[in-house]
């Protein structure tokens, strides 16, 4: 059982990540993966020209690893991978990749869902959207917090 978390300063390649993960998860009966993409529009539907993810070297990596470890401990999965971008990101570029492998599909679906809900609120990033009208720092939405709360029931 292994949970790997990685911070990626360069472009993220979900296809390569999934191919490697599939190899490493040999023996699993199910793999669920998720790709989060940088949205080209803000919540208020304004154009987003770029995204910037500030991070705290050391603490941010640890926050990703803690979330990946928690996923491994909580669900009947054999392997977890979390890869998260930092730095400048263009609209529609992958920002996060999550994969979970298990013997049967349900655990992998749940684990991927759980990992994303935690990453969306607890991963140690400060995110700024740049647009034509300037920029703004983003905080988790009420929906993000409600999604996270599902797992504490």
């Amino acid at each position: 059982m292994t949970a790997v978390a990685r911070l990626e300063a360069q472009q993220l390649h979900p296809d390569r990540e999934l191919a490697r993960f599939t190899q490493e998860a040999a023996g699993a009966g199910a793999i669920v993966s998720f790709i989060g993409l940088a949205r080209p529009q803000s919540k208020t539907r304004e154009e987003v020209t770029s995204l910037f993810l500030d991070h705290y070297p050391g603490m941010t990596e640890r926050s990703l690893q803690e979330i990946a470890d928690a996923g491994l401990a909580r669900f009947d999965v054999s392997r977890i991978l979390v890869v998260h971008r930092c730095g400048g990101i263009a609209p529609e570029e992958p920002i996060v990749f999550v994969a979970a492998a298990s013997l049967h599909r349900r655990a992998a679906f749940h684990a991927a869902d759980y990992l994303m809900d935690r990453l969306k609120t607890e991963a140690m990033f400060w995110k700024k959207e740049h647009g034509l009208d300037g920029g703004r720092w983003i905080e988790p939405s009420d929906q993000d917090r409600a999604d996270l709360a599902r797992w504490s029931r």
Partner: protein
Amino acid sequence: MNTEILLFGSLAERFGERLRSDLPEGGCTISELRAMLGAGDPALATALFQPGTRASADQQIVREEERVFPGQEIAFFPVLSGG
């Protein structure tokens, strides 16, 4: 001793990624440090005392009453955005 304080997110954007402060040899609490840093800069004081602005020492999140000492890695950061 001059200690570097790290800032992140909107704090870094507004006030720079690093502040310097002469921490007393015997250390001070996080809330005392907030007040010291903000003493000459009302905008920084407001930002540091904003609810949700957290502090860490040696990469561990610390409470207001925690004492920090010269030479430690101290940081202040705003509410996390998440990923």
